């Protein structure tokens, strides 16, 4: 008999359930290195087609499948089943409205991302026939920032984000710093103006959950600290 692991999954179908409940499934371990997403797929394709979740690249770069697994936010596609304590409790990302089962509504999360003007702002026209130049040292300043996959694991692990519905949150603030840190960008003033707010950088109380939650090993807290420092330096 193949080894099995128990998944306890948060279920909620708005069309028929008054309230959410948890359902238990057995997942067969068929090869070493199986990920949580492989287990969810096994359930859907072989046991219960009604289970809903998001997934796309299945290798940790598209950011679709952030979930709360055994109490911690992570991506189901790069989390090994064997590294987790059984039974494995799988819930949607905290603090965002649930659409169905493990699918949450990201509208608020993305709206906060749009607020920080997440695009290169330039005033000087680029050279007509070649790239803008950027030294390798300046380019290096973007490492640890541009890799963000917008999975929302960080923001939805942040107690300040839970408590303050207007807080921009670590993902949006990291994005703001990604552009301010870019030697080609000329939009620092407008972005700093936006994040210099009680619902912006000053709402971060360095709880550090975001760092722990980030599946790409990025450091939003440090990005927020850099934003705070830059604001203070410009003011005084």
């Amino acid at each position, binding site marked *: 008999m193949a080894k099995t692991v128990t998944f306890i999954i948060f279920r909620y179908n*708005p069309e028929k359930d008054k309230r959410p409940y948890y359902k238990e499934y057995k997942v067969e371990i068929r090869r070493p290195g199986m990920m949580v997403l492989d287990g969810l797929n096994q359930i859907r394709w072989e046991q219960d087609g009604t289970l809903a979740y998001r997934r*796309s690249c299945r290798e*940790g770069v*598209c950011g679709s499948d952030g979930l709360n697994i055994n109490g911690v936010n992570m991506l189901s596609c790069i989390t090994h089943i064997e590294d987790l304590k059984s039974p494995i409790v799988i819930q949607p990302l905290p603090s965002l409205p649930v659409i169905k089962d493990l699918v949450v509504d990201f509208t608020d999360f993305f709206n906060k991302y*749009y607020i920080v003007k997440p695009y290169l702002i330039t005033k000087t026209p*680029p050279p007509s*026939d070649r790239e803008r130049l950027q*030294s390798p040292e300046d380019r290096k300043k973007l490492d640890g920032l541009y890799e963000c996959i917008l999975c929302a694991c960080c923001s939805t692990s942040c107690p300040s984000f839970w408590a303050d519905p207007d807080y921009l949150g670590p993902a949006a603030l990291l994005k703001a710093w990604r*552009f301010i840190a870019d030697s080609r960008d000329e939009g620092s003033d407008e972005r700093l103006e936006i994040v210099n707010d009680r619902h912006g950088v000053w709402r971060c109380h360095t709880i550090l959950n975001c760092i722990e939650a980030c599946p790409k090993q990025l450091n939003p807290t440090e990005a927020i600290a850099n934003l705070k420092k830059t604001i203070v330096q410009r003011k005084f």
Partner: protein
Amino acid sequence: MGNNSAFDVVIHKHDVIIVGAGGAGLRAALEASKVVNTAVISQVFPTRSHTVSAQGGIAASLSNMEPDSWLWHMFDTVKGSDYLGDQDAIEFMCRMAPEIVIELEHMGMPFSRIENGKIFQRKFGGHTKDFGKDAIQRTCAAADRTGHAMLHTLFEQCVKNQVVFYNEFFAIDLIMNEGHVVGVLAWDIVNGGFHIFHAKATMLATGGYGRCYKTTSNAHICTGDGLGMTLRAGLPVEDLEFVQFHPTGIYGVGNLITEGVRGEGGYLINKDGERFMKRYAPRVMDLASRDVVSRAMAEEIRNGRGCGPRGDYILLKLDHIGADVIHERLPGIWELAYVFAGIDCTKEPIPVVPTVHYCMGGIPTNYYAEVVVGNMETPETPVKGFYAAGECACVSVHGANRLGSNSLLDIMVFGKVGGHRMAEFAESLPEHVPLPENPGKNGIERVINLFNSNGKERMGPIWEELKESMDANCGVFRTEETLTKQKAIVDVLIRRFKNVGIDDKSKVYNLDLVETLELENMLEYSKAIVEGALARTESRGSHYRDDYPKRDDVNWLKHTLAYLEEDGSIRLDYKPVRLKPLTVEPFMPAERVY
């Protein structure tokens, strides 16, 4: 649930509709939205599209590292295509490449840089200097996360330009009237319900079809839905039998290890530790084009020189290039090898196998991204209002085999041109061509039937059998015997699908419904892949027939077209290769040696 009245049909009207929000779709949207009312429909939030997984880079003869020319790039692409590529489109793409990359940089794409501040370029398979003399550094990279950097940059520009998105809408069918494509029928995944998008110009940018195989680098969403839509509209798909096996998918899971690893000096070894590529491609060895390397690996494995207890993989060695280079230029690869193979690749080699990666075939277009129909006798003519770009299209710039880093280039060039062309077309039409009576009727009925079906079959087991049998019978090596067997298997699966039902009968986020509709698409075009492959009695590029091991230019220097007939059968037709480039002399078919 259970009757028609449970569903409203909402109608939206835009000048231009683009289905798909990967690189091609977003590039087209940026272009079209400057001029006309444009909207993008996507099955996923845009940054979840599969472009995000592209690693190595985008080819362009920028000459940042060493002198280069678009003509060399063109030669390499034609040769890489095993002469099945259309040379007008290839010239068009290679000439435009430098400008396309510079534009991306201007949009803010975080390319890696060299000391003088210009964009970093690396070596890639099949890219050479001076018409095949030696490997060249042509591939522009953002570390090994070029697709991620590109997709996010394009989406950021869309945010800046306030492009309209309908995210998590699943496109079901094309809608045609008076010989025009007038829009699409889609299903709102989040809320449930049908939506008709009525447009003057419609583009499919729905990506590749690798998910009909089991061993694949493709995302879950790469189910080739645009091909099913095109086939059901009575229009042809082109060259589907050409499916690229990337040499280095991680053994057992298929996740991609970029060719950039070999570009940076990594190489493949068999169980004897031999760098076997020197026997197959003496000049550029591990940087030969992908079909050549994948076949060499499969050959090593079937001759008993594979690695591991079952002798069924090859090792990719890269520890000798140094931990510093790996962490600087290939950080994503280090991560993937660590997570998916449990290996620290700065110390150990990575177990790899040839893996379904890219679909050269697709919806036939010209180099304006207009969908075209023609055959050996009749010249190609555009289908009014219908455009396709990216992996779902077949321009054909990749012919029988795509060169690495030409795919990100393809999606940018033809996305941009298509977007521009659609805007022009939309402006030239004073009014929308009206919707037909009962628009989307067939698609709406198929969905309602699934909700009402008591069918005992389920999507999961049918799909599993499709994937496994496609791997076994329509893979790197094919014969009449395996393909005939596969044709019969697909027919059985199609019959079983007629009795399919869904577990989930709810409207909201019904993934069961979406995956079942995807499977329907997969079954339809898998039949076209297999029948095209069975008919093509030659070996060319990625299509290798053990029973016909030579390329046959006399009989097969032509594109396959597949039509889905009313009775569900596939009808094959053919059209000539466009051998004449735009301004230069053609590259005539020659023996391919690397």
